[in-house]
């Protein structure tokens, strides 16, 4: 296990067992995230990008099931630990921001109520404050007992006042004006962008090591989106939080992420740094995505090249590469067997048979020696 990695997913498979049959939402996925890095996951609806991260949070409910694989977070395999253990991690070490800010906050409680609850559930006072508190005690026997407890690692939870202070601090940090006043309000009194800020403040309030943002700006307007993206970048820089960013918008990926994973049909198609994915994509699907969005904001118009066909049905996914039915370069082997992730460069991997030495030469694709 590499100590540099915050999160490592190995051969993850998640399926939903519906009455119509098994839906293989995530099929054998592996990737890792460095400490303090921002990883972007792109993919269309149904590509399995959200299910992967819900698996990390262990939020897959019946009829869904993690069939196989390891999820190693900070040295702990999340698939093996008990329900209570994951509840301690969820919300404190790993936090998640969802797409729709209205449905992920409880409308009948004030922001204060909800934030204080989360903070008091997860946060302990710092050792320094605990010692200071103990020093101030007048009763000597009590003081000694308190200090001994601190030595043993017993710290009390934050009290309401401390939790409230903390909540207000984080609301201010995410740019909510007058946090002392706003914290007493109900979610409906906030606008969409403000609600998303509240959600981010809530997610940050327990100082998570990993923040998972599942399409956090999709429901927002562009001008508000720009504010939220700036905020997330600032948080990553200042607090050193690792962030996984799920989106379908290539523009957002280019803006915030360092590394990118492209998913399709429940599998990883390509991964690499943001520059590699945008300037030298090696998978036909990534290329297709680039060609199907208008690139030049200014300058003359180039006709879009759409990817023909439609995304695969995960109930009966194609036997080989999930993209093969829509791929221009599909060969016999693509239909029969999915290609493994082949190394293109130190950081870039592509799951395509065109990377193979025996494959025909196609313009724009470089072959690597990775697949034999």
């Amino acid at each position, binding site marked *: 296990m590499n100590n540099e990695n915050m999160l490592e997913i190995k051969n993850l498979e998640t399926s939903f067992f519906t009455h119509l049959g098994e839906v293989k939402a995530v099929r054998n996925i592996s990737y890792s995230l460095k400490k303090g890095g921002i990883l972007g996951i792109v993919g*269309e*609806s149904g590509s399995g990008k959200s299910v992967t991260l819900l698996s990390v949070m262990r939020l897959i409910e019946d009829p869904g099931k993690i069939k196989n694989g390891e999820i190693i977070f900070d040295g702990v395999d999340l698939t093996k630990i008990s329900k209570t253990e994951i509840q301690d991690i969820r919300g404190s070490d790993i936090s998640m921001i969802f797409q729709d800010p209205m449905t992920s906050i409880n409308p009948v409680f004030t922001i204060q109520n909800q934030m204080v609850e989360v903070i008091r559930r997860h946060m302990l006072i710092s050792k320094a404050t605990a010692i200071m508190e103990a020093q101030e005690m007048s009763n000597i026997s009590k003081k000694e007992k308190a200090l001994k407890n601190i030595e043993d690692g017993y710290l009390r939870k934050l009290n309401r006042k401390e939790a409230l202070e903390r909540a207000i601090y984080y609301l201010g940090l995410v740019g909510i004006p007058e946090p002392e006043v706003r914290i007493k309000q109900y979610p409906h009194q906030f*606008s*969409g*962008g*403000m609600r998303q800020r509240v959600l981010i403040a809530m997610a940050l309030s327990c100082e998570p090591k990993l923040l998972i943002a599942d399409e956090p700006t999709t429901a927002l*307007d*562009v*001008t*508000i*989106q*720009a*504010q939220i*993206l*700036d905020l997330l970048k600032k948080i990553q820089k200042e607090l050193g939080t690792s962030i996984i960013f799920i989106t*379908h*918008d*290539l*523009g*957002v*990926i*280019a*803006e915030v992420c360092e590394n990118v994973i492209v998913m399709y049909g429940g599998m990883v198609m390509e991964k690499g740094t*943001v*520059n590699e994915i*945008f300037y030298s994509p090696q998978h036909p699907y990534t290329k*297709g*995505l*680039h*060609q*199907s*969005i*208008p*690139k030049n*904001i*200014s300058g*003359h*118009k180039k*006709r*879009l*090249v*759409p*990817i*023909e066909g*439609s*995304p695969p049905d995960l109930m009966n996914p194609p036997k080989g590469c999930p993209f093969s039915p*829509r791929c221009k370069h599909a060969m016999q082997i693509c239909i029969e067997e999915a290609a493994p992730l082949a190394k293109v460069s130190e950081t870039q991997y592509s799951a395509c048979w065109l990377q193979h030495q025996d494959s025909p030469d196609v313009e724009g694709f470089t072959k690597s020696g990775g697949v034999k």
Partner: protein
Amino acid sequence: MEDRKVLLEVKNLKKHFIIKKDILGKAKKTVHAVDGINFKIYQGETFGLVGESGCGKSTTGRTIIGLYKNTSGEVFFDGELLSTGYEENKLRIGKLKRKLKRELKKLPEDASKNEIEEIKEKYNELLNVQKSELKEKKQTSKSLGRNQRDIQMIFQDPYASLNPRMTVSEIIAEGIRTHNLLQGPEVSERVFVLLERVGLKREHASRYPHEFSGGQRQRIGIARALAVDPKLIIADEPISALDVSIQAQVVNMLEDLQEEFGLTYLFIAHDLSMVKYISDRIGVMYLGKLMEVSESDPLYELPLHPYTQSLLSSIPLPDPDANLRSERIVLQGDVSSPINPKPGCRFAERCRFAKGECFTESPELDEILPGRFVACHHVKEINKL
């Protein structure tokens, strides 16, 4: 440019929604969804309408096609008056009557008959003007043709806009039957042609909407709009519910159809890069008003209105290097509410350059450079023109 034929002209269009009335039925809260906009769409072009959610772009489209009745203002299609709003006249009459009552009450008890008569006459004159205007507008409104075949609409949500109990052929043929365009077997023949034109198959005609994917449903919606040979198609966010790889398919098809049938589009969307791609001219809306109208290339190269500038600078580009280079103007705050808006420029509260008259007077949409209309008091200073 001026010699091109104007297909649709919108003059001072307003659409207000009353959301709260007091006990007397007087409007207390009014949403000024569309508040006096003017624009022209030339034959054969694509006019893009962009703006953030709640700016009134969809309401504009729906008012033009007649799904909403306009509060005031006129819509001309192909030189003919399509709709005229008289709600505002009604409101004005009510206001005048109340004012008259109030003034009569204020008079001292021993006021002479003459004084009372004088006030009454003053108000009657004003009232008569409004009443005759109302009568006239009602009359013209009645005489206007109900034939709205020439304008068709494509909706945003391909799941909600198709009736789940009708087969695809029934959905597409409904317009043909309503307008009695074709009879008997010709109808189904036409449906087949349309289906094939939008990239579906003949055998799809007898299926129901739930059997199709989002992209295919949007194709059905487009076939339905094409069925009655329209001249103008209002596309209200036709691609925002679709996946990226499918969006390009639909956009390309819309372009091909435009060329083939000589269609004119009013393309409403919030995806700015796609609007730029498809539109010849673009109107930028903010809180019910048009901020800037221009040809699309100059608009994106040199936006003149401060709102357009910040809007365009906040698009994340699918190009990591370009994002590092370009400087971003991040707007502070949120869009203010369109309920009983304050006087002055709608954008003033969030504008970096706002001062003085911006808060008191609403700017007009003026032609600042040839073909470029901007509604801003200080546009010349801001852009150093």
